[in-house]
């Protein structure tokens, strides 16, 4: 237990110090981002390089900071719901689920079974969409351009289902506090089933392109290694933690929504390198398909909204609720002062915490590995900066 304190290799770049001797090669300081094709948005990474080798990095974030937590204090509980979609905009449904469940817990109500099943279906579809986007962009970062188009083609089908369900494709705002505000449309189950049949061979297709591709394996094996201990010490969660061999998924560890009803596995890796993370995410996509397949057949009948007051005034108190978002543990810490507006909403963003591990993972690696690791951490800057 005690040796965890040894991991304190977190950014002290000391950019100002430049003591050079006559024979030293120049340590190159390069800004990667904010306007860079491979930093997934407006992440700025200051790289200290010796040739191609990375001596250290420092992340500069906040270019997309919108003060979501401040806004929450000035909106009612209901009004704040759409804002959470804008954080991790590729997994908006997960964000909404976390927030709605947190407020429901605070109000001490529970969403009806039917609503919970619909929530599970949509959240897992969203996990698929998020992982597909990750796969495409990650492969693009490593230089394989083709998977991007394949994954975007298939992600489109998920977005079509979202669009039909709630009218929006990306920032869905699919759930309401207390349940779902929309009943499923006619043929929802049939279309989801059709999508499952459509997408299963497609995932094999992605794997065919990459899993045994020699260059892909060479580029990802032993790149950005992180051990389970380091993951836990750095608070890294989600597929990154699981790829390091920790079988921990909030859907199993602290189940929420209707997840206890379903039978699924938690894929784990062993080495904690980029390749294992890739494999784990691919397996997760298959597990998601499994969950959706189980859920879609037995969505119970009944109401979709619980009885909740029109004006929500949760009792004084505070709650921390977290869910397994595609990126990791997404937590909401809500403090209520008994009024209609939350006194404080804190979002525990998985991307933000995971990004912290970047420096540790890329020290001593090459520039190309930095790109690969940023991709494999699967960050969304909207969530990092909030």
């Amino acid at each position, binding site marked *: 237990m005690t040796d965890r304190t040894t991991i304190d290799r977190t950014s002290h770049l000391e950019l100002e110090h430049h003591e050079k001797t006559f024979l030293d090669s120049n340590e190159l300081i390069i800004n990667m981002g904010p306007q860079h094709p491979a930093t997934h948005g407006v992440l700025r990474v200051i790289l200290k390089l010796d040739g191609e080798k990375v001596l250290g990095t420092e992340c500069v974030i*906040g270019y997309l900071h919108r003060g979501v937590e401040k806004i929450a204090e000035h909106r009612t509980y209901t009004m704040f719901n759409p804002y959470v979609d804008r954080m991790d905009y590729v997994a908006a449904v997960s964000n909404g689920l976390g927030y709605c469940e947190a407020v429901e*817990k605070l109000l001490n109500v529970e969403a009806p079974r039917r609503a919970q099943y619909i929530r599970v279906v949509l959240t897992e579809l969203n996990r698929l969409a998020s992982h597909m986007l990750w796969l495409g962009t990650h492969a693009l970062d490593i230089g394989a351009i083709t998977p991007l188009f394949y994954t975007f083609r298939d992600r489109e089908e998920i977005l079509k289902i979202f669009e039909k369900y709630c009218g929006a494709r990306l920032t869905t705002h699919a759930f309401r506090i207390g349940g779902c505000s929309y009943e499923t449309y006619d043929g929802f189950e049939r279309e989801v089933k059709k999508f499952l049949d459509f997408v299963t061979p497609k995932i094999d297709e992605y794997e065919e392109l990459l899993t045994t591709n020699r260059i892909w394996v060479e580029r990802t094996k032993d790149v950005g290694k992180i051990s389970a201990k380091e993951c836990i010490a750095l608070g890294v969660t989600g597929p990154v933690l699981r790829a390091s061999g920790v079988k921990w998924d909030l859907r199993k560890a602290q189940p929420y929504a209707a997840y206890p009803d379903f039978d699924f596995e938690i894929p784990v890796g062993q080495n904690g390198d980029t390749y294992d993370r890739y494999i784990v995410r691919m397996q997760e996509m298959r597990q998601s398909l499994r969950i959706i397949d189980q859920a879609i057949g037995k969505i119970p009948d009944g109401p979709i909204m619980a009885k909740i007051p029109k004006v929500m005034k949760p009792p004084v*108190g505070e709650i921390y609720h977290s869910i397994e978002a595609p990126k990791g543990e997404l937590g909401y810490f809500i403090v209520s002062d008994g009024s209609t507006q939350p006194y404080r909403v804190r979002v525990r963003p998985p991307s*933000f*915490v995971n990004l912290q591990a970047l420096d540790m993972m890329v020290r001593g690696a090459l520039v190309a590995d930095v790109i690969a690791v940023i991709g494999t951490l699967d960050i969304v800057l909207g969530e990092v900066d909030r």
Partner: protein
Amino acid sequence: MISRLKGQHGSGIREANTYLGQKYVVADSSLIPELLQVLRDQEHFDYCVDITAVHYPDREKQFEVVWILYSFPRNERIRVKASYAEVESVPSAVPIWPTANWLEREVFDMFGIRFEGHPDLKRILLPDGWKGHPLRKDYGIIQQDQEWVQINLGIESGQ
């Protein structure tokens, strides 16, 4: 566990309770570094989920800092809370959980709470020269550092 903690630290634990099934401990601010260390080493709370703060301007000690911890072996969470006045600085948890680094920087950025012993305490989300700490209750929602915006962006208002 709570009783064990109480036995060890006695009056330092102001309140230990559960609300909506979630455990929390309100501790005396002087007890914090010790308590966090004990929670990690003896009670196996090896994962620091989040560090955040809440601002209560009416209280004597304005800031309530919250540590949310999780234990992998026990599969349970606990929240540790302690109050600090504006002038006080909080002991940093970075030596205990490296993940606290950015989380504490964010708390510093948003609330202006200083963390003692943090390796690199500077703003993280807002630009370095920014004035004010936005998540304090006395910081208005549309308020911003006009001067900074003018100098760095060359526009009158960022809104």
